[in-house]
């Protein structure tokens, strides 16, 4: 995973609650056995007026002009502003893959669904939970004539808006470290291989049925 670096990006406001991972990336794209190439199909049913299929060339598809990512002001947005319970439903990691492939690196919402939230950190996306009134204020600013830009400083856990306002945020210490250093979780866990083997040896005595094989 690439280390997460501080950046300044445009905010795209997606003003609907309970956006589920089926909406983020519809089921037909889950048939891919690859990890990349999902960006053009991000929010496919909201973004296009026709029915999308895997490997379709999206450059000539009819666009839903009412959808935020089809507004030229937001087409290179790197920060997604969302409502309650963002990423609910299916555990599909294709959702953060599609968001990252499109270019999103930060998602701001009053709440996130649990599995999606975890999946983001595995893919270099920083999900930030902010209080509802702050999110409401950001929606107002992001929906103005000039796009809202935010500078994201992960080590300092601080957002700086282009009008000078600053918003501190919290992030789990372990997740923060892994994002900043771009660490490979599996490699880190395998450094604990001896502890895992000791645990297993103990469990084989305490609960041998767990290791019973047909």
């Amino acid at each position, binding site marked *: 995973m690439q280390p997460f670096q501080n950046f300044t990006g445009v905010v795209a406001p997606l003003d609907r609650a309970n956006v*589920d991972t089926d909406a983020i990336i519809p089921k037909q794209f889950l048939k*891919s056995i690859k990890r990349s190439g999902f960006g053009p199909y991000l929010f496919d049913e909201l973004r296009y007026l026709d029915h999308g299929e895997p490997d379709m060339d999206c450059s000539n598809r009819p666009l839903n002009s009412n959808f935020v990512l089809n507004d030229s002001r937001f087409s290179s947005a790197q920060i997604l502003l969302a409502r309650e*319970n963002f990423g*609910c439903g299916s555990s599909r990691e294709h959702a953060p893959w599609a968001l990252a492939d499109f270019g999103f690196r930060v998602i701001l919402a009053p709440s996130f669904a649990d599995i999606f939230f975890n*999946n983001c950190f595995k893919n270099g996306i920083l999900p930030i939970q902010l209080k509802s009134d702050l999110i409401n204020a950001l929606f107002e600013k992001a929906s103005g004539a000039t796009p809202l830009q935010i500078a994201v400083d992960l080590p300092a856990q601080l957002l700086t808006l282009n009008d000078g306002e600053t918003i501190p945020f919290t992030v789990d210490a*372990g997740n923060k470290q892994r994002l900043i250093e771009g660490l490979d979780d599996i490699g880190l866990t395998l450094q604990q291989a001896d502890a895992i083997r000791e645990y297993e040896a103990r469990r084989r005595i305490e609960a041998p*049925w767990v290791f019973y094989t047909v």
Partner: protein
Amino acid sequence: MGTKTLYDKLWNTHVVRVDDTGTALLYIDRQLVHEVTSPQAFEGLRLAGRQPWRTSANLAVPDHNVPTASAERAAGITDPVARIQVAALGTNCASFGITEFAMGDPRQGIVHVIGPEQGFTLPGSTIVCGDSHTSTHGAFGALAFGIGTSEVEHVLATQCLIQRPSKTMLISVDGELGAGVTAKDIVLAIIGAIGTAGGTGYVIEFGGEAIRALSIEGRMTVCNMTIEAGARAGLIAVDEKTIEYMRGRPYAPSGELFEQAAAYWRTLVSDDDATFDRVLHLDAASIQPQVTWGTSPEMVLPIDGQVPDPAAESDPVKADSIRRALAYMGLTAGQPITEIAVDKVFIGSCTNSRIEDLRAAAAVANGRKVSKNIKLALVVPGSGLVKEQAEAEGLDRIFTAAGFEWREPGCSMCLAMNADRLEAGERCASTSNRNFEGRQGQGGRTHLVSPAMAVAAAVTGHFVDVRTL
């Protein structure tokens, strides 16, 4: 007298170590694998030159993409992209030594049906799968939750996950359910009460007389939809029903080892003095058959309800959600649920495709006919073994005589990755778990109900209280 919740016991038993940030390395006893969320995980192992930590901890099955029409199953999957994905599961399992129940195997079925059916799901274990409905297995007093593909790879490679403990919630469903009210109605009513984000950050334990009275299969239906309330996992304490369900299953221990396991499993209850971060009580007798009307499982009403009016909602975000849902669903505020006509009926999914679900559906279908305005009524059993059992009981003949199609096992129209789907504007009474926009096909309109209520809608052509048939 202890003070530990069931969750505390499961968590404590599986912590390998805790680091200085408070993050735990949690040991995972079992992983279920399916074709959609695993190929990138296997590819990751391959690229890094890694092997599975403990191959026998994994059991794989194709379910999301498989056709349910027997002709297509015999001829091979028509959709080339789906065919490649199902084939990739076979290749990956063969090369890494993981047991797979492939499409022709009678044990093939929906991953959350076959785990318990085979006794692969053990009480007291930690179980994961790259699928959010892994919460199903919590019905056995197991800590079971869905994970993403990166974590699937992490578990394959290390048999562990990096986790932080969740908060605990007890939902006690007190008293007795009314006749004709099912586990599905309980869980829909709970989601309606706490909302789709009501469980976020929590593991929910379900208790109370009404939960204790449920069969193991009913408990699976309740735990299955815990994810629809946003919780990490659902849990139900072990009792003698759990132990008896496990006895004689192929992957469960046998003989002396079974008795030794059972003695431990009986300790898997929350202690009398345990405290939960949140406790909720629900009166079982007040629960009516439920029908969702909108595009989120929390948009649910009792069968005698009326579709809500956004003008009556003070929260602007919620009012907007209601307005959007009404437009998508083609409904008007104030419309009685019983006046909503349906086009298709789907009985199946990891929520409601087990033998008891099919028996409940067949009991209503018996001697009745699917209404003329229904374009398609499907029954998709959860596994090949459920299908065999249903056929041995003659349930298939009841369904086909009534005008239902009797299919091969798989996820089918729950998420419409295969050919079973809704066309734009079509309305479905579905026993599945999600009514999101486009879930059963782009533009499709899903109403979630119990198996008995789905059949009631099939035979009358609209939603109706099954108790009045």
